[in-house]
């Protein structure tokens, strides 16, 4: 009972200090919103309006119709028509265009003949996403002139995108971004929490009181769990309003998953805090967690495509498991019960990190 009161005393103190710390307070709101806007608008693998030049050597009715279809996809923005392939290559080299379209003089015959490609695409390969776009154009349904039965040709592959039919990038990005933002803010806040008190001398006072290390740790974590939840609401609201990101599954499941994730990060932050002797050191250690959380968690690159070694690192990171949970709940309408292993991992991670932090944080100075 006394223990509970002491924890509440720490919670109250933390909240009071937070309220007076405008910078931190600003970060709680500012960081998620700014990151959402940055990532949401800037990271767009769904490329449109690429500068394109066309060399139509055929000049038939059919080829003109093809160019018109190409324009309609909005993937390309045809800025120039040129004579020869050489002209296209020059434009590519100079960086004037990203894609060159070559329509050969026997285009009509090639369209009806399956054995040869009808159109050649010259792609600027320095940007890997361009190659993806080229593939996208390859599957472009060419629905003109049924007499030539070209629709058959272009429908060899049919892609049915599940869960994100419009293939909008923000829909994929935001559930992952949620994890990155929470990792960043939660670890940042707690990593400096203990170190700051050590630097300011407060710790020498605290360890001379009846307060136990566990009480101190728990008391420090509770306010930030609430803050984490506020950030989550903020992210979901911005996602919904600006990027139209859906939450298909249960919102309660999502909050449960987020609570365990926030707790895992806070515990990790505390662990960092007990290992660092200055706030600057704590920051440096945080970067070691943050970078892999962005790069190896499946947020940036597909998890299955990473080398095995990187996958092992990824599996350790809470963010990897959280991204699986959020993508499942928000985009695939999965129930939390179906994603149990990831949830259990986060709970286990929290307990182990908390235990280690409390062990490391001794009430003695030597």
């Amino acid at each position, binding site marked *: 009972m*006394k223990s509970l*009161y*002491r924890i*509440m*005393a720490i919670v*109250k*103190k933390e909240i*009071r*200090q937070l309220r*007076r*710390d405008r910078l931190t307070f600003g970060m709680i709101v500012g960081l998620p919103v700014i990151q959402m806007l940055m990532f949401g608008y800037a990271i767009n693998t769904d490329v449109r309006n690429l500068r394109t030049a066309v060399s139509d050597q055929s000049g038939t009715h059919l080829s003109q119709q093809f160019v018109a279809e190409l324009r309609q996809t909005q993937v390309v923005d045809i800025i120039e028509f040129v004579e020869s392939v050489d002209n296209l290559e020059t434009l590519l080299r100079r960086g004037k265009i990203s894609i060159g379209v070559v329509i050969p003089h026997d285009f009509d015959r090639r369209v009806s003949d399956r054995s040869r490609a009808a159109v050649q695409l010259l792609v600027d390969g320095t940007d890997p996403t361009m190659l993806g776009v080229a593939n996208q154009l390859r599957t472009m349904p060419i629905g003109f002139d049924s007499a030539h039965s070209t629709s058959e040709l272009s429908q060899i592959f049919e892609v049915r995108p599940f869960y994100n039919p419009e293939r909008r990038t923000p829909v994929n990005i935001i559930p992952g971004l949620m994890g990155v933002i929470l990792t960043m803010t939660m670890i940042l806040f707690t990593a400096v929490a203990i170190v700051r008190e050590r630097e*300011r*001398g*407060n*710790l*020498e*006072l*605290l*360890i*001379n*009181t*009846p*307060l136990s290390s566990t009480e101190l740790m728990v008391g420090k974590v509770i306010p930030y769990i609430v803050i984490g939840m506020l950030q989550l609401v903020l992210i979901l609201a911005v996602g919904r309003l600006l990027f139209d990101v859906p939450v298909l599954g249960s919102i309660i499941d999502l909050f449960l998953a987020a609570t365990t994730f926030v707790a895992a990060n806070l515990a990790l932050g505390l662990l960092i805090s007990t290992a660092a002797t200055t706030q600057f050191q704590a920051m440096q250690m945080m970067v070691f967690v943050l970078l892999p959380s962005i790069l190896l968690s499946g947020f940036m690159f597909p998890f299955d495509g990473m080398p095995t070694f990187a996958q092992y690192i990824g599996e350790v990171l809470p963010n990897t498991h959280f991204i699986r949970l959020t993508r499942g709940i928000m985009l695939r309408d999965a129930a939390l019960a179906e994603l149990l292993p990831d949830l259990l991992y986060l709970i286990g991670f929290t307990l182990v990190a908390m235990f280690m932090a409390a062990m490391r944080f001794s*009430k*003695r*100075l*030597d």
Partner: protein
Amino acid sequence: MRSEFAIKAHGLSKQFGQLRAVSSLDLMVPRGEIYGFLGPNGSGKSTTIRMLCGLLTPTEGTATVLDTDVPGSSKELKPRIGYMTQRFSLFGDLTVFENLQFIAEIYSYPVAGRSSRIDELLERYDLAEMRKQLAGTMSGGERQRLALACAVLHHPELLLLDEPTSAVDPQSRRDFWENLFRLAGGGTTILVSTHYMDEAERCHRLAILDHGVKVADGTPQELQNRTGMHIIEVIADDPYAAQSAIHELEAVASVTQLGTRLRVLIPDSQDRPGELVESALAASNIKATTRLTTATLEDVFVAVTMQPRRSA
């Protein structure tokens, strides 16, 4: 069983790597007294206080604080002691009132009496007008009063003060000592470390520490009576020349200049110290008057922390 001593330590030592910060310290602090630790920086004062409240584990030796073994059961001890750190350790971004409230909550001070206790402390330590001021914006003396108020809030039996007055002005120091005497009068045992002579003089009893070793202890009066030295005051027109002349004498243990006066320490074993000094001054043609005087605490400190001249 309640011992008449608040602190009993025997052979207490602390080793930090190569450095022996405290060496075989024996300590007996009677209840209800103000006990001083006098010593220069690095003499082991803070280390000893930290060992006594269980913050540091002694390398050797034992200590019993308020009839409890430390560091063994320091957990039960925490609510019974108050500790004031050398550096201001309260929360600068909380107000005076909030700091006191936090301390009251941490020590589980009974809710019923809490606000009246805080009001009482605000009044007693002259903080009532600053109750809504952030602790970080207060002056050195104000911070110190707040720190003391926080340290005594839970009515500790023993108060450990680690150089509490190192950052405050003389007037604040006087007021601070008034408060300490009032607390001691109320039965609180106080252990205070300092490097100010005038503060050491105010203690009921004190120990002088030097390089981790206790070189003397007793009441200030006892210490002044048994320096083992004759103290001779010399007033000279040219104190610097006088000092050089007196330094030549083998028997002289120490010469300290205070303005135009010199304080000369000569061991007891010397029969006629006054004549010795006078003849030395006469030999160098220095006009001066000399007189035998009683030891101050400063003389005691110089006498006990002095390196033997021969080995220097």
